[in-house]
């Protein structure tokens, strides 16, 4: 077999197979299409015919087809060109349809957005002719017969004219008449460029803000009224505060004077009672001694109350000047507690002092002593015979603690906040057990505040109470404790 015959056979075989494959391909496929499929099949069929003609001719079978081969070859190139152009046209049409659908969807989306916008949106010309209006803007459009026009034209005209001339306007406030009503509008406008490049229309967005403007005006008026009211109230409060300060100072002066004036006759009563009890003027019988004993005891009790009131008055008036010195805290506490043992013994209470540790701090000895004395006296007063009062000194890293713990009646949680107030006692009905004016804890609180100490209380009714004085031992702790507090 010659090369020519072999080549023709190969060509025939390949074209025939190609024709079968093209005809077998699904015409419903999007990438194919029936007309495209059959156009290609016809082109390949022409080549099959040419190849078959060549094979038959060179095999010496027949050359009858040779006369038609030229027609087939002449047809082939235009047919290929037709297939290519029609395919290209089909694809361009499909792309155009897809683009049109896309534009239609985008337009629908844009219209939905524009129609649901809270602002009124229009496209208008400088003369007020309306080209487009969204849902909100349509109520401001009227049609007198020569096309739709804006009813807001006289008020918004300057803005639209500026925008058409190429100067965008942003959030301009305009006073416009609508159906006889005068209303405020906020207006923004931008030129709408056309194909010529020159704008004849403007996109105008506006909103009726009459209610908002009215609310703003009302707010301004309200604010001014409020400021005036606050100024007036502040003046009244300052005046009242001044009056209260004066009244408080007068009250403290009165308290100090009365206490001072009471002390002198009281000392005389106590002194002369002791003198009579000592039988210097003459002998007394037992009944006289018993009754004079009541006088002396009541006089001393009254003197103690007066002394407490004077001390409270001094502390509250800020006259208790602090005098700091280096002291051994344990020794100072022992010196205060030991003499009080006599009072505790009289009441059948065991008073102990666990203050053996040596701890040096800077403190006001007199005021610290008074705090401890008041706390211990208070504990003894409210503890039943047979109970204990324990005074402990607990050294710490930043602060030292002086704890006064008793097994007394205790204080309910709801009463713990008020027992530090002046003239307050938990059970005021039990005056026999706890004689006094209820000033001891108040003085302790004020003195702790003055010295920068903290006073805390843990108590349970029927079990006992523990008062703790927190004394800062470092300058940092002292600064942190500030002016002192009660917990």
């Amino acid at each position, binding site marked *: 077999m010659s090369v020519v015959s072999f080549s023709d056979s190969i060509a025939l075989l390949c074209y025939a197979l190609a024709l079968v494959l093209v005809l077998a391909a699904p015409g419903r496929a999007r990438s194919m299409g029936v007309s495209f499929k059959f156009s*290609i099949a016809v082109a*390949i069929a022409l080549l099959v015919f040419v190849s078959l003609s060549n094979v038959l001719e060179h095999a010496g079978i027949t050359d009858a087809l040779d006369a038609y081969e*030229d027609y087939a070859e002449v047809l082939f190139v235009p047919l290929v060109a037709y297939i290519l152009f029609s395919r290209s046209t089909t694809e361009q049409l499909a792309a155009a349809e897809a683009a049109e659908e896309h534009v239609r969807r985008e337009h629908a989306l844009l219209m939905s957005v524009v129609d649901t916008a809270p602002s009124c949106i229009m496209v208008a010309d400088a003369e007020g002719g309306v080209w487009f209006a969204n849902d909100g803007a349509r109520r401001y459009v009227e049609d007198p017969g020569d096309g739709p026009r804006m009813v807001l034209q006289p008020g918004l005209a300057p803005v639209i004219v500026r925008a058409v001339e190429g100067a965008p306007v942003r959030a301009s406030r305009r006073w416009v008449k609508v159906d006889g009503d005068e209303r405020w509008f906020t207006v923004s406008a931008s030129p709408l460029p056309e194909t010529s490049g020159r704008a004849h229309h403007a996109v105008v967005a506006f909103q009726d803000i009459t209610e908002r403007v009215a609310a703003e005006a009302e707010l301004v008026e309200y604010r001014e009224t409020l400021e005036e009211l606050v100024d007036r109230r502040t003046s009244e409060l300052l005046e009242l505060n001044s009056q209260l300060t004066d009244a408080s100072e007068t009250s403290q002066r009165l308290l100090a004077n009365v206490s001072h004036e009471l002390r002198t006759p009281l000392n005389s009563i106590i002194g002369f009672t002791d003198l009579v009890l000592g039988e210097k003027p003459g002998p007394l019988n037992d009944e006289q001694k018993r009754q004079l004993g009541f006088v002396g005891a009541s006089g001393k009790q009254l003197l103690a109350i007066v002394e407490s009131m004077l001390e409270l008055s001094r502390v509250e008036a800020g006259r208790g000047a602090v005098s700091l010195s280096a002291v051994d805290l344990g020794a100072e506490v022992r010196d205060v507690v030991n003499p009080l043992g006599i009072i505790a013994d009289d009441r059948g209470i065991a008073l102990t002092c666990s203050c053996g540790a040596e701890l040096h701090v800077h403190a006001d000895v007199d005021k610290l002593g008074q705090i401890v004395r008041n706390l211990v006296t208070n504990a003894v007063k409210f503890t039943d015979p047979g109970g204990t009062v324990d005074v402990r000194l607990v050294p710490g890293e930043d602060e030292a603690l002086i704890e006064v713990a008793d097994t007394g009646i205790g204080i309910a949680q709801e009463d713990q906040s008020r027992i530090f107030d002046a003239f307050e006692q938990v059970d005021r009905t039990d005056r026999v057990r706890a004689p006094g004016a209820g000033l001891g804890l108040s003085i302790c609180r004020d003195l702790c505040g003055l010295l920068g100490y903290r006073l805390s209380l843990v108590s349970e009714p029927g079990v006992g109470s523990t008062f703790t004085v927190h004394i800062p031992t470092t300058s940092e702790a002292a600064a942190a404790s500030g002016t002192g507090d009660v917990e």
Partner: protein
Amino acid sequence: MYQESEIVDLLMVLFLTPIMVATYRVVTVRGKRWFALSYLMIAVGYVFTVLEGYVAPEALNTLEHVTHALAGAFCLAGAASIFRYARSDAGGAT
């Protein structure tokens, strides 16, 4: 000597091919490169057909038929590509 139909074939190839090349770039037909090669082989075969009337008739005739065989092979490759893609595109077996 040449035949008139061969000259017509060659002229059509020369005039239409540049236009077809521009269109070829934008269409999306699976295996279009194979079909383009097949068309190119056929066009070269037309050239050999015309030239064999003037020089080396036997050699150019042989080359003409060889280009036809190559065109057939490329056309088969293109048809196979179309067949595979059309079946997968239509949801059939790949």
